[in-house]
């Protein structure tokens, strides 16, 4: 009977998704496509924000969007109203997008010709934080109606995003939300995080965000 032998390996196990995401990131950069993803809980205003952003960028840039949901093509229809190229990814039961889904969705597009690609993740403040999509920038949204302590309760999604957006600021008064408290909670979880406050509905704050997201802007807020 042989005694077991100990074999040292010391090998990093990267999740399969990380391999693919890194590859995708290289391909995006080589083609000069700026990829920006959006995460938040359901109902924070991602789709409304994206619809406004697509409408703004359509005039000056070659822009497209991918949107993930478990079911329906509703978001893709809404986003298409901007005139931009949009594709829906329906995940079935999967609660987050992953790099494989993004790659497959892009297969029948000439995506290399794009300047800007937005990816709207499935509404979820938990799972998307574990799945790199190969993006340049990840934007986390939290609306004034969700509760000022949400960043403290969901630190991982804020830690794995680059930039935060406080959305629906037009409703702050109605729900008695203290935006400065929400801001400081975000900064407690991720000191120095760049925060934008806006209302996609009224347009307040949209210019600052679009200037920041435009392909010519510097990506200073890139996460390490």
């Amino acid at each position: 009977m042989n005694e077991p032998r100990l074999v040292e390996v010391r090998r990093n196990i990267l999740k399969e998704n990380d391999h693919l995401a890194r590859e995708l990131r290289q391909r995006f950069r080589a083609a000069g496509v700026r990829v920006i993803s959006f995460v938040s809980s359901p109902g924070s205003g991602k789709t409304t924000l994206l619809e406004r952003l697509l409408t703004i960028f359509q005039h000056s840039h070659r822009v497209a969007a991918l949107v993930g949901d478990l079911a329906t093509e509703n978001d893709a229809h809404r986003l298409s109203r901007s005139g931009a190229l949009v594709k829906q990814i329906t995940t079935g039961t999967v609660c987050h997008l992953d790099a494989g889904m993004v790659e497959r969705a892009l297969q029948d597009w000439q995506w290399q010709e794009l300047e800007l690609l937005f990816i709207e993740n499935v509404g979820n403040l938990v799972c998307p934080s574990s799945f790199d999509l190969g993006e340049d920038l990840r934007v986390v949204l939290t609306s004034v109606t969700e509760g000022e302590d949400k960043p403290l309760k969901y630190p991982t999604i804020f830690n794995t995003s680059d930039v935060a957006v406080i959305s629906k600021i037009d409703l702050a008064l109605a729900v008695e939300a203290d935006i400065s408290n929400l801001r400081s909670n975000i900064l407690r979880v991720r000191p120095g995080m760049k925060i934008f406050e806006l209302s996609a509905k009224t347009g307040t704050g949209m210019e600052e965000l679009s200037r920041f997201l435009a392909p010519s802007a510097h990506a200073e807020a890139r996460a390490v």
Partner: protein
Amino acid sequence: MHELSIATGIIDAVVAEADARGFAAVSAVHVRLGAWAGVDPEALAFSFRIATQGTMLEGAELVVNDVAASFICDGCGREHRPGNEAPVCPQCGAPTHLLHGRELELTSFEAIEQVLA
């Protein structure tokens, strides 16, 4: 559940090494898992048990060595281990960055050599 794809990644890495060295079966696998790696140890153990069935790792024990998250201060250089609270330096209040805690490393495995007739 992404723990299954991590378990598969571990198994593939072990099989590659074990095959190359002529081992017949693997009895234990040692991994280092960071507290902030985003991997649940129980889900990983469960996935490992399932994914090893029918392979040379069937029945092997997965030994997980937890690595606590520790942050290093960008200001004063002090290392500290946070609880669940925000990673700001307890000494000087400056932002910190993660030093340890995202590890997912296959450290070693125990295997039994082929018995040559």
